[in-house]
């Protein structure tokens, strides 16, 4: 199949960027989206042009590195990561618009690559539990209700890809924060730092320049891991509780 690609090209973080159009022929529907971009880049290298920079790592949908805005949808038309998207989701002759995540907290490094360091700093501000390393304690010594464990595991699937921020009309990272806060807050190990976690993460989130949540719900629709909106309710609940406790 043949596709027309409109791709954001930007040489570095300070230079202005623009959309460039490329025609690509001989695309197989069995190719992954990133393989299709690999083929484009081989063409560009042969022609002596600068290949399109994009992020990817595991290409298994579990690392969160690959994130592209494809035809106005974070990770494209399927509920999955960009690397797990295949060209069978497109038709011969399609025009495909590819842009980087648009968030001032995720500055463009080059072309489609953005710096998601803001997420790391939010995690450093509270998205962890403090435990002494060493031999693991006996798992059965700390009982966890089944429903709590399931919820914690479900939201722990967040890979920090940033699709929630990319899709949010406000550019908020509340779904990401809510996933971490719910994940750790559901488990006994997360309780000692529950208040300082939410206060620290929200303060860092706001300082990074992410927008405020207005409960629109585009984040959860874009999330490749289908993190539900109720984690944001949990985030708000925990924040109110922490403020009541004097934080």
């Amino acid at each position, binding site marked *: 199949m043949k596709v027309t690609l409109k791709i*954001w090209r930007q040489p570095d973080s300070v230079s202005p960027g623009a959309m460039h159009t490329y025609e690509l022929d001989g695309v197989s529907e069995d190719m992954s989206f990133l393989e299709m971009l690999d083929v484009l880049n081989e063409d560009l290298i042969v022609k002596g042009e600068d290949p399109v920079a994009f992020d990817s790592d595991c290409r298994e949908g579990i690392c969160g590195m690959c994130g592209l805005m494809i035809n106005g949808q974070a990770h494209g038309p399927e509920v999955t990561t960009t690397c797990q998207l295949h060209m069978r989701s497109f038709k011969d002759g399609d025009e495909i618009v590819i842009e980087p995540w648009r968030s001032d907290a995720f500055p463009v490094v080059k072309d489609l690559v953005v710096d998601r360091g803001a997420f790391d700093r939010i995690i450093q501000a509270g998205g962890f539990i403090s435990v002494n390393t060493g031999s693991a304690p006996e798992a059965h010594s700390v009982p966890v209700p089944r429903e709590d464990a399931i919820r914690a595991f479900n939201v722990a699937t967040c890979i920090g890809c940033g699709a929630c921020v990319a899709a949010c009309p406000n550019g908020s990272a509340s779904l990401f924060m809510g996933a971490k806060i719910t994940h750790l807050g559901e488990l006994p190990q997360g309780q000692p730092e529950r208040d300082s976690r939410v206060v620290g993460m929200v303060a860092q989130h706001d300082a990074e320049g992410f927008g405020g949540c207005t409960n629109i719900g585009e984040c959860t629709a874009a999330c490749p891991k289908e993190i539900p909106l109720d984690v944001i309710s949990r985030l708000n609940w925990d924040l109110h509780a922490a403020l009541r406790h004097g934080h």
Partner: protein
Amino acid sequence: MAASGIIFIGFVLLHMYGNLKAFSGHDAYNEYAEHLRTIGEPMLPREGLLWIIRAVLIVSLVVHVYSAAKLWRRSNHARTQRYVVKKNLASSFSSRWMRWGGLTILLFLIWHLVNFTIGKVNVSGGATNDPYNLLVDTFDTWWMTIIYLVAMFALGMHLHHGVWSSAQTLGLTNNARARRNAKALGWIVAVVIAGGFSLVPIFVLAGVITK
């Protein structure tokens, strides 16, 4: 946003209920309007409770508008480079119209207060000292009814998203069922309040409520 919004919901519910007194006729409606001024007497002065309510509403309005402006500003700064193509997948029309819809309601509110409270403007040139007659004169004018119906549509949309959004902000929608219930409540509140308010102008224009 959530706390001040809930105060407004309580207010519009009472206001809507009061307006329906128009169906009971001239005397019942004016008696209700007068009662609002004498309620709480003699412990409170005349219009005492009314001014307490007004003070709460003014403070809520300042908080609500300030919070909205701050969110809007943060949102603009969070994405200065816009997408060339951006699709809306799951968001409701009302959720995306909270800001412009809210401004519509604010503009309407100013006119509404000039119309019935501060200025008492009778567009048909009649008397303004009789609440019931002012109401009928206003909504006998077709374009006034249109303005009010448009405003009620904006209010209904604002409530549809606002009810669920405030529940979420207060942390009350911590599971899928609670989320569904909050969204359903948003629909109910929007239809009851916007619909209830719209009855009086429509029935005046239709000639059912007359002087």
